[in-house]
C-alpha cells in the first residue's frame, strides 16, 4: 500500500527545520511561512504535488525543471541550492514516471546543474540523443530579460508540450516586476531569466506547475504572498528603488515551502517514491554527496558563505546526507506495516 498524507506531512516537516546563522540572514521565518504554505495547500505539500505528478505526467512526457539562483559578483555561477534539487526531481520523474526531463536555467547556472544531474545518475545529452533514448536529460539555457523570457516560454511550450513545469529555488518578480535577494537588494529583469512566464503559460496550457522555495522570493510563493510580506524583513519593502518588497507574486498549482529549496525537491521525490512504492526514486545519501561535489566543480557556491565549499545555504555536507537519510526512513517505515506481538 502506498504512503498516505500523514507520511507526507512527516516529509514536509523534515525539510522545513530552520538552521540559520545567528545573525545576517532572516531568522525565525521558516515556521510561519511553512504554516502559511501548509494552509494554502490544504494538506501535505509534497504529498499533494507528488500525487498530481503521478496523475498527470505520463511516460514519455516532457517535464521542465527550472533552477538557478545567484548572480555575479558573489555567485557568478550560481549557488548549490537549486541545482541539486532540480537534479533530484528530474531523476525521480525519470525513474519513477518515465518522464523526459528538460533542465532549464541561466547560462551561468547550467554547468553546475548538469554536473549535479549527471552525478545523480542521469546523463545529460544533446537533443538528438534525447529524442532517441530514455534514461537521460536535456539541458537548455534560458535567455536573460523580459521579452526573451516571454519568447522562450512560448517556444519551449511549442517544441516540447510539457505536462509539467517545476521551479526549484527560481527567483520570481515582485508586483512591480523586479527580482530580489532575500535581503532586499534588487536585481533588474535583464540580469535574470524571466522564468515566471513558464508558470503563466503552464496555467494557460493546462500543464501542472510546481514551485519550491525557501524564502518567499521564489516562483510559486505567490500562494503565500501576504505571509511573505508580513514575515520576511524585506517582504513588504525592499532596499532597491522599486520599494515594493521581495515577495514574489507568481503562483503555481503547488507550492512546497522548505528551509532549503533542495530539500523541498527531495521531499517531492520522496513522496513520489512513497506513492509509487519505489524508494529508489529518491536518491541516496552517497549520491547526494556526489551531487554536491559535482555542483561545486560546476562552479556553484554555497549561497550563505558565497564560497566554493561543500555547503548548501550554510549547512554542511553531512547535514544534506542526514536529510536524505531521514526522508528515506520516513518513506520506508511509511511503507511498512509490521505489528509486533506485544
Amino acid at each position, binding site marked *: 500500500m502506498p504512503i498516505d498524507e*500523514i507520511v507526507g*506531512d*512527516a516529509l514536509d*516537516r*523534515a525539510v*522545513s*527545520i*530552520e*538552521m*540559520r*546563522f*545567528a*545573525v*545576517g*540572514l532572516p*531568522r*525565525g521565518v521558516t*515556521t510561519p511561512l511553512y504554516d502559511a504554505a501548509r494552509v494554502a495547500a490544504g494538506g501535505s505539500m509534497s504529498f499533494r504535488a507528488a500525487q498530481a505528478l503521478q496523475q498527470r505526467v505520463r511516460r514519455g512526457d516532457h517535464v521542465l525543471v527550472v533552477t538557478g539562483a545567484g548572480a555575479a559578483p558573489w555567485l557568478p555561477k550560481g549557488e548549490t541550492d537549486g541545482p541539486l534539487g532540480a537534479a533530484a526531481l528530474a531523476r525521480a520523474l525519470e525513474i519513477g514516471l518515465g518522464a523526459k526531463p528538460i533542465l532549464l536555467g541561466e547560462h551561468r547556472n547550467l554547468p553546475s546543474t548538469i554536473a549535479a544531474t549527471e552525478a545523480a545518475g542521469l546523463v545529460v545529452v544533446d537533443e538528438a540523443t534525447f529524442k532517441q533514448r530514455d534514461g537521460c536529460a536535456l539541458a537548455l539555457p534560458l535567455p536573460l530579460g523580459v521579452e526573451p523570457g516571454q519568447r522562450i516560454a512560448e517556444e519551449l511550450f511549442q517544441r516540447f508540450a510539457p505536462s509539467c513545469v517545476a521551479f526549484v529555488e527560481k527567483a520570481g518578480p515582485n508586483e512591480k516586476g523586479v527580482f530580489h535577494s532575500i535581503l532586499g537588494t534588487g536585481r533588474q529583469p535583464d540580469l535574470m531569466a524571466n522564468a515566471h512566464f513558464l508558470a503563466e503559460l503552464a496555467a494557460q496550457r493546462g500543464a501542472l506547475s510546481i514551485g519550491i522555495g525557501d524564502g518567499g522570493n521564489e516562483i510559486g510563493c505567490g500562494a503565500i504572498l501576504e505571509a511573505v510580506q508580513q514575515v520576511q524583513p524585506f517582504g513588504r519593502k525592499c532596499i532597491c528603488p522599486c520599494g515594493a518588497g521581495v515577495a514574489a507574486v507568481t503562483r503555481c498549482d503547488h507550492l512546497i515551502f522548505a528551509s532549503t529549496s533542495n530539500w523541498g525537491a527531495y521531499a517531492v521525490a520522496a513522496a513520489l517514491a512513497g506513492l509509487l512504492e519505489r524508494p529508489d526514486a529518491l536518491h541516496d545519501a552517497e549520491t547526494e554527496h556526489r551531487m554536491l561535489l559535482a555542483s561545486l566543480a560546476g562552479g556553484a557556491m554555497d549561497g*550563505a*558563505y558565497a*564560497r566554493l*565549499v561543500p*555547503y548548501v545555504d*550554510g*549547512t*554542511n555536507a*553531512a*547535514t544534506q*546526507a*542526514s*536529510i536524505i*537519510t*531521514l526522508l528515506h*526512513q*520516513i518513506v520506508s*517505515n*511509511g*511503507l*511498512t*506495516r*509490521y*505489528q*509486533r506481538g*506485544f
Partner: protein
Amino acid sequence: MPDIVGEAVDKLILLEIKNRGMPFGILQPLYDAARQAAGGRPLTMLAAEALQRTLHRGDTVFVLTGAGYGPTMPKGESDGPPGAAALARMLYRGLGAVPVFVCEACHVDPIVAASEAGGLMVKPFVQARDRRLGAALAVAPTEQSRVKDWVASIYAEMRPKAVISTERLGPGANGIIHTATALPLQGPDSQFDPCIDISAVVDRANADGIFSIGIGDHGNELGFGTIYDAVVRTMPKGDRMATVTRTDLVVPAMMSNWGCYGIEACLAFLLQRPDLMHTPASEERILRACLNAGGLEAMFCTTDFAVDGLDGETSMACVQILHNIVRKNLEPADAGLTH
C-alpha cells in the same frame, strides 16, 4: 533566539517515522497538549533552561530509564539508555552535575554500556560526587515491597536537585504498568518477567518540589500523567496504558532517545558549547554498546542496529542535524567556516 532553536529541535525530534503497524498520528496531539501544559514555548528549550537554572556544580540529578522485560527484551531496549547516557553526559560536562541512573537491576548492563560508550563512566556514588569521576547508579530492589524504603534511602543519601525520566514506564489508573499497546506488565495477567514500579521516585520529587521532566513516546512513560486526558484521547486503549504519574514538564518525541538528544542540544546552545554534544559517530558507538549489552531494538527484539523500528543511521542523522541547528544558531554570518 532560544525559541527559534527550540522550535527547530522540537520539530526534528517530533517527526513521526514509525512503521505503520504501530499507533500512528499520535505525536502531534501529545506534543500539543504537553506544550500547552507548559505554557506554550518549545519544550526541549524549556527543559534545558529549567535544568540550567536548577542544577549547579556538584548537584545530583536522577536520570530514570529502562523499559522492556523478558522474555522479549530481558535487559530492556535500545530506546532509553542511549538518551539517558547522552543527556547525563551533557549535565555532567556542561553543568558539572552528578548524574545518577535510577533503574531496575535487569536494565543495568545496557545503561552502563551506553553511558561508558558515550564517555561518561559509571562509578560508585561517593566517587562520582566527591571526585567528579562520572555518573553513578541507584538500582531498585527486586521486591516491590522494598521500593518505598529504597526511595527514602536514595533521597537521603543523594539529595537530587532534579529528576529526569526517559522511557521509564509508569502505572496506569488501575495501578498497573502497561506496554504501549496496553498489555499489562504487572499482575496476574502479565506475560512478562517481573517489572518493578519505581514511580515513587518521581512522586517523591513532586512532593518535595524537586523539578522533574518526563520524556516518552507513547504516553505510558513516567510524566505523561500531566497530559493524561490527551493520552487517553489519542492512544489506542489509552484509558488502560496511560500513566497517571506526573512531572513538571513532559517532552514527547519520536523515540525517547531523541527527546533526550533534543534537550542535550538546547543545553549546548544555552551554554554555547556545541563541542559538548555527542556526535553521529559517538551515537553509533552508544547504540551498538547498548545493543551488545542486551538493550535490544524493540520491534523484532534483536541486536539489529535499530531503535524502535528506525535504523541506527536515522538516529545518527538526527544527531547530525541537531549539531547543525545548534552550530548555525551560534554562528555569526561572517565567522567563516566553523564546522
